[in-house]
Every structure is written in structure tokens, then in C-alpha cells.
């Protein structure tokens, strides 16, 4: 009986350790804590060029992660890339004239969507479109423009 009790305790500890590890992985080491559950709203933004942005890329505001990119498609009507952003529910006070830009974290880091709050009194809500956008910084294009303007001089 005593041995059986010891085994049960050991198994109990084992299961607890395993579940605790899962918990730590989910909460401390992944975006689960940041994006608790799937509660949030989606916005769309159109860009001339999205550079290396991918589905699952982060959406940041002021450097804090507030959501992620859920869909990217090319819109043939406007010849622009249409990016769907999923923003966590707790960040629901972005003014209507907020702008979105695609930036790179560090020199070699991945690309993310940065939200820049505007000044309107109404807030963005589910399904809205962000009209003010700034495309990704694409090295080749910038260099090309630079050379072109130099040549024109």
C-alpha cells in the first residue's frame, strides 16, 4: 500500500511537471499570453509593396506586439497588396485615421506592420480599412531611385 502510494505521488508529480512545462511553453515562451485566445478584430490595409511581410508576421504599435497578419492577397482592382490584420481585443482604441507601415526590425530582422495612431475621435473597428499606409522599404528600389536622381543631376 505504501509503495502504491509512492508510485501514485510520483506519477502525479510527473503529470504536473509535464502540464506545467506546456503551460510555461504556451504562456512564457509563445505569443499565447500576448494574444490570449482568439478574441480580437480584423482590419485591412492596402500597400503598394509589402516587401517580405508574411502571414503570422507581428503587428506592433510603439514596439509592443498587438496582433498579427492573418491574410495577404493581391487585389487586382487596385493593383495593391491587401493585408488583413488581426488585432487583439484589448487594443481597440486606434483612431480612424491611424496609419500602417511596414518596417524591418533591425538591419536583418523580420518585417512587421507598425500602427501609428492618428487624431480622430472615432476608433477603428472590425472590418475597417486603414487608408494611410506606407509601403515596405525595399532596398533595390531605393538604390535605383538614388542612382536615377544622381544621374539626372
Amino acid at each position, binding site marked *: 500500500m505504501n509503495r502504491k502510494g509512492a*508510485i*501514485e505521488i510520483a*506519477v502525479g508529480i*510527473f503529470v504536473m511537471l509535464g*502540464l506545467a*512545462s*506546456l503551460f510555461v511553453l504556451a504562456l512564457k515562451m*509563445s*505569443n499565447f499570453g500576448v494574444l490570449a485566445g482568439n478574441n480580437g478584430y480584423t482590419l485591412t490595409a492596402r500597400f503598394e509593396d509589402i516587401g517580405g511581410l508574411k502571414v503570422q508576421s507581428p503587428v506592433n504599435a510603439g514596439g509592443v506586439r498587438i496582433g498579427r497578419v492573418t491574410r495577404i492577397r493581391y487585389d487586382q482592382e487596385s493593383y495593391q497588396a491587401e493585408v488583413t490584420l488581426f488585432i487583439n481585443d484589448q487594443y481597440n482604441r486606434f483612431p480612424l485615421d491611424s496609419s500602417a507601415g511596414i518596417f524591418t526590425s*533591425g538591419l536583418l530582422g523580420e518585417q512587421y506592420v507598425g500602427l501609428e495612431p492618428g487624431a480622430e475621435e472615432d476608433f477603428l473597428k472590425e472590418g475597417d480599412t486603414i487608408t494611410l499606409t506606407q509601403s515596405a522599404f525595399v532596398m533595390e528600389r531605393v538604390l535605383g531611385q538614388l542612382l536615377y536622381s544622381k544621374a539626372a543631376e
Partner: protein
Amino acid sequence: MLRQQVQGLGRWFINTVQRLGRGNLFFLRVIRGFPALIFRQPGLLISQLHIVGVLSLLIIVVSSVNVGMVLGLQMYNTLVDFGAESSLGPAVGLSLVRELGPVMAALLFAGRAGSALTAEIGLMKATEQLDGMEMMAVDPVRRIVAPRLLAGIISLPLLAAIFSAVGIFGAYFVGVGMLGGDAGAFWSQMQAKIDWHDDIINGIIKSVVFGIVVTWIAVFEGYDAVPTAEGVSRATTRAVVNGSLAILALDFLLTAIMFNG
């Protein structure tokens, strides 16, 4: 001469297909014992969780600390050249959660618990314990095999989660504690990069699949062993080799399905 080779190939193929068939039927037979096991004899499951899970804990923790520390050291030294040492967290975290955690834990599990299961069941067969049970009107598949298979399926995902978590702390210890990386960047970058659904849930799915396959191979090899000392030792070797190969093959397959979507 050539005829013999062709015949040999044919025989090998037929035997392999037959074994696969027997293995599948066996798996179904075992699974049918699960409900009765859970509701009527949970004590059997608990004692197997102890043998299969708890006793594998030590080797899992020791290996994962090592793997984590080596990852931390190597990646830090490489990343620091590009000034990208803040990416240490995501680099270590992703490799552990997606690949190394499930795969390494499963390989260690095949060596530690899988071989023990095969040897135990094979020995029970060789010493007529399984026959004896059968003659006592107790189905050995339900009484002996079912708790072991279920314990393996439950244990491996837990062990893999422990492997990943402990490994990440091992990398943190080296990369941040010893080499002086930034603690905040380590965690925040990791949080930004590891997606709980795409990375962690998929990692868990992987380890559940590995748990089923490794334990299944182990118990089947034991149950199907030639009931002699030599037969059992061969079966044990086969269980570890086939189990490990199955893990690697499945890992490739699952990774291709999960992370390329």
C-alpha cells in the same frame, strides 16, 4: 542465382506486409481495451505511467539541459557575429519546440522505455506468462499491453514538453547567464516569434504521433517476438531501431505538412 535473389526479395516483401497487417490488427485489438482500462482498472495505467513516464524523466531532463546549453552556446556565438544575439531566444525556442523537443524526447523514449517494454512483454511470452494469463481467461492484450500503450501515448507528449521547456532554460542559462545576452530580448523575441498554435500545438501533435508509433512498435515487437532468449533480444533491438527510424521518417513527413502550409 538471380532467381534466388528475386525470390528472397519476394519473401522479404511478403513477410513485411504480413507483419504490418498483424501489427495493425494488434493495434486495433489493444485500442479496444482502452475504455475498460480507463474506467475499470485505472490502477494498471497509473503503475505503467510510473514505469514508462516517471522513470524516463531523468534521462529526458539531463539530455534536454545539455542540448539546451549547447544550443545556447553555439547559436549565441554565431549570432553575435551578425549583431543578432537578440534572436537567440526565438532561434533556440523554435528549434526546441518544433523539432528537437518532440524528436529527441521520442528517440530517448524509444531507447529507454520502448526497449524495456519490448523486453518485458517478450520475456513474459517466452516464460509462458502470456499463455498462462490466456488460460486464466484473462486477455493479455487488455491486461498487459493496453495499459503500456496508453501510458506511452500519454507520457511522451508530457516528456517532450518537459524537454522543450527545460532545454530553453538551459539555453537561457548559457546565453544570458554566462555569455551575457539580454534577458528581456531573449524572452520578448521568443514570445514574438513562437506562435502558440503553429509551433506549440503542432509540436504537441508531433509528440502524440511519436508516442503512439514508438510505443506501438515496442509492444508489438514484444508480443510478436520469437519466445526464446535470442528472439527477445532481437525483438528489443528491432523495437529501438524501427522505432527510431519511424520517428525520423514521420518527423520529416509531419514537418513538411505542418510548417510548409
